[in-house]
Structure formats: C-alpha cells, structure tokens
C-alpha cells in the first residue's frame, strides 16, 4: 500500500470517528447555537461538509488517472 492510499484511508476513518461515540458524547448539546442551529444539529451539518472535503482530498490523492494503471 502506498503513502497516498494510507492517507486516504486515514481520512475515511476520520469521517467515521466524527459521527460516533465518543465524539457524539461531547457534541450532544443544545448550547451554543451556531448560525441559528442548536449545537448537535450544527455539528451534524458541519460534519457532512467535512466528510465531503475529505472525500474530495481522497479523490485528489488516489482517484486521478494515476491509479487506473494499477
């Protein structure tokens, strides 16, 4: 496994970690409101965005034409 693949897998794991316990234990709160959203809903929305960014990075890392050769 090359280095790019390792980073991509790490990013994927980060996506998962933000959505489960124990992170949910810390973000499961109403205050503070952010952009009008209670904190837990804000976190969920934010995390969807983070996951999207991470996937875009994964694509840059291993999704380009380079990988189709292997």
């Amino acid at each position, binding site marked *: 496994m090359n280095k790019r693949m390792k980073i991509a*897998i790490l990013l994927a794991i980060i996506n998962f970690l933000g959505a489960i316990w124990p992170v949910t234990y810390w973000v499961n709160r109403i205050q503070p*409101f952010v952009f009008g959203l209670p904190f837990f809903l804000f976190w969920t929305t934010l995390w*969807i965005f983070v996951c999207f960014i991470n996937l875009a990075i994964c694509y840059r890392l291993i999704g380009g034409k380079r990988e189709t050769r292997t």
Partner: protein
Amino acid sequence: MTHISLWIIIGWLILSTVVGVLAGVKRKFSMEEWFVGQRGFGLILFYVVAAAEIYSAFAFLGLAGWAYKFGAPIYYAPMYNVLAYTLFFFIGPLIWKYGKTHGYVTQPDFFIHRYQSPSLGVAVAIIGFLFTIPYLQLQIMGTGMIIQVSSGGAINWQAAVIVSSLASIIFVTVSGLRGIAWTNFLQAILMLVTMFSVGFLFPHKFFGGVGEMFRRLAEVSPQHLILPGKAGTLGLGWYTSTTLMSALGFWMWPHLFLTTYSAKNIQIIRRNAVILPLFAFALIPIIIVGYTCFLMAPGLKEPDHAMLITLTRFFPSWVAGVVGAGGMAAAISTSSALTLSACTLFSRNIYQKGINPRASDDQTVRLARALVPVVTVLAVVLTFMRPKMLVTLLLLGYSGIAQFFPGVFLGLFWRRATKAGIYAGMIAGIGSLLAVNFGLLRFPFGLFFGFWGLLINLTVCLLVTLLTSPPPKEALDQFYSA
C-alpha cells in the same frame, strides 16, 4: 380547493410514466441493457439515478415524522449517508471493476464467482429478495399517504397506491433500468427543489426564521434537540450502532449494486462518491420541517403525516400539490428500482442460476419483465395487510441487507475468506435478527439489534473461515485478475 394539489400530483405521475416509457421504447433488450443500462451511465445520469434511488419516501415523510416524534436521534440519517459514501469511495470501484470484467448483472453473481458457489448465489438472492420487500412496502405506503393527505382525503391511500403502482409497472416493464434512470432525472430535480424550499418556507412562515424556530423549540421541548431524544430511549449507544450498521449495510442493497454496475467507467464511481454527500444536506431542511410541524401542530397521532398535514392546513393548495408531487417522486423513484432489482434477483439468480441453468439470457430478461407486475402486486397486498410506521420498515430492511457486508467486504479484500465462513456468518446473523423479532432474544446495552446481528455475523464468519481450508488458488487468481 384541494383539487389543484391533486391535479398537480396526477399530472406529475403521468409525466414521469411517459418519460420512463419513452426512454426505452426503441431499444432492443439484452440482459445488460434491461438490468444495468448497458453499463453506459455518465457522471450526471449516474448521480441523479443514485440520488433518487437513495432518497426515498423515507427521506421525505419518515424523516420529518421522526424529527417530529423523537427529535435528534434522526440526525443519524444524513450522517450514515455520508459515511456510506465514504465507504463507497473505496469499495464502489472494485464492485464495478469485477462486475464489468466478469460480466455480473446482479449482486449474487458476485457471490457465485468469488466464492465459487452457485448455491450461495441462490441464498443471497432469496435473502435480498425477502428484505427488499419491506423497503418496497415503505415506498408504497409513502406514496399512498402523500396522495391521501394532500388531496385532503378525497382519494384514500389504497386507491392512490393502486394507481401509482400501475404507473411504475408500466415504465419498469418497458424500459428497465434506463426507464428508471430517466424518470429519476425528473424526480431528483423536483425532490431537491422541494426539500430546500420547504426547509426555508416552513420556519420562515411561522417563526420568521430557522434560528427563531429553534430558540422556541429549545424553550418548549429541549429534549428534541439532543440524544436520547423526546422519548428518552434512543441514546448514544443506539445512535452509534445504528449509524454504523446503516453505513456498512448501505451499498449491500441489491438495487444499489445494480446501479453501481451501470456506471460507464471507474472515474464516474469515484466522482459520484465525492459529490453524493452534497445531496445529504437536503435532509437537514426536512428535519427542520419536522421540528416546525411539532411546534405548530403537536400531538398528531401519525407523525409520518406531520409534514403533509401542516402543509394542507397552513399553505395554499398548489404548494401542497408541489410538495406532494416531490414526495411521490421520491417514493416512486426508489420503488421502481427496488422492483427491478427484486425481479432480476429472482429471474437471474433463483431461476436461471438455480432452477433452470439452461435458460437463455433472453428468456431470463423476459421472465424478469413478466415478474414486474407480480412483485409489485405482492408488495401492495402485503402493505394493505400490515401497514407499519415508515422507519420500522426501513430499519427492518437495513438490518437484513447489512448481513451481506462480510461477504462483500471480506470477499473484496481478504483472499482467505471462504464460502463456509460467509454462509455460517449469514445464517447466524439472520437467525439472531429473527430471534429478536419474535421476542426470543434481547440484546443488551441499548444498541440497535441489526448491529448485534452484524457483529454476530462477522464473528462467526471469521471463526468458520479460519477453521476451514483456504479457497483454491486458481479460482481466486482468476477472480482477482480483473
């Protein structure tokens, strides 16, 4: 006054059917065409097909219903979606690649080849078929509810179900996956527009903004905004286990396997894995709508109706019509894909690979097409007999389908995985689901029962795999050579 909404919905139904039929009318139907659209879908077509299949009646009604009744636990839905796409980024290209090289047209085809076992293919087909049915029921009930409520009760849900099922029978039979793709194109656009507009419309109309609505909710019912939710039963353990199980089980759906095969090339799969999360944002406005409905009309007996009732009560008829059409779009786009996949499972893997190996591909397609009305009628009859709350049906389907995860995941990445291991794990997993369902067993720690099923499945699978001898090297080399 309710007439306008009704005509909008009916008009949309007719439009979708016509588009679906036109998509396939001049094509010659080989198996690859009818099942997987000739593996020729480009970036945009694949995107809307996948999105419209994924976001179903549940995304529209069930989500708002859960936000209304339980609150924060429903955040698991957008969350697991995104995690499922993360997983898809890594396994999707492999599923597609093996499918293309070895000519698979269904999910069990993969199992048959990887584990060198036609009987495993039949077993996977039967399980896939059985658990597709509750999910199909969900769509059917959703369609019925939408038409009943937004017509102000002028049409009862049974009649609505019959009419809309007829429409989907027509275009699925005629055009196969390509018909579904083109109607889904329409459905996806309408869904997106309605989801975002109601998300802003609702809180603005009643509270002057999303922030004000939440401030109000935090005073009236703060339990709605955090786990364990309004009912107090869906806590952190439930949340984590349900999210994980749904994310892992997601791409195990037979109809999403079919859709994966339909991509033109591997880049289309990867790019879609990146852009599909954007669609998950559309679920947030629906959750906000559910909350708004709770503040405006608390105490409804059927939470799944919350959004529609609020719509018809406080908005002009045409708004209810458009949103109703959007919800129906979501339901029909998913139900048609589920019907197609159930029929292909039966004709390809139970009939052609199991009962009558001499059946030609042409006969298999003919059988699959003939089965479309049969499967639809079966699901409709079951729905009439035992209507349930939408999310219950959803989680039942997911728990069953998630049991394919070890077979697919280990099959892709672990050469050592054996047929006996997969078989044993699947039997143990599904057995435990049944035991829970019939009240013979209770799982501890408040974790979601489908998650326990998956854990048991994985453990048994690993143990049995290590106890049996490794699969023959030549067969594996041939499989992995793609």
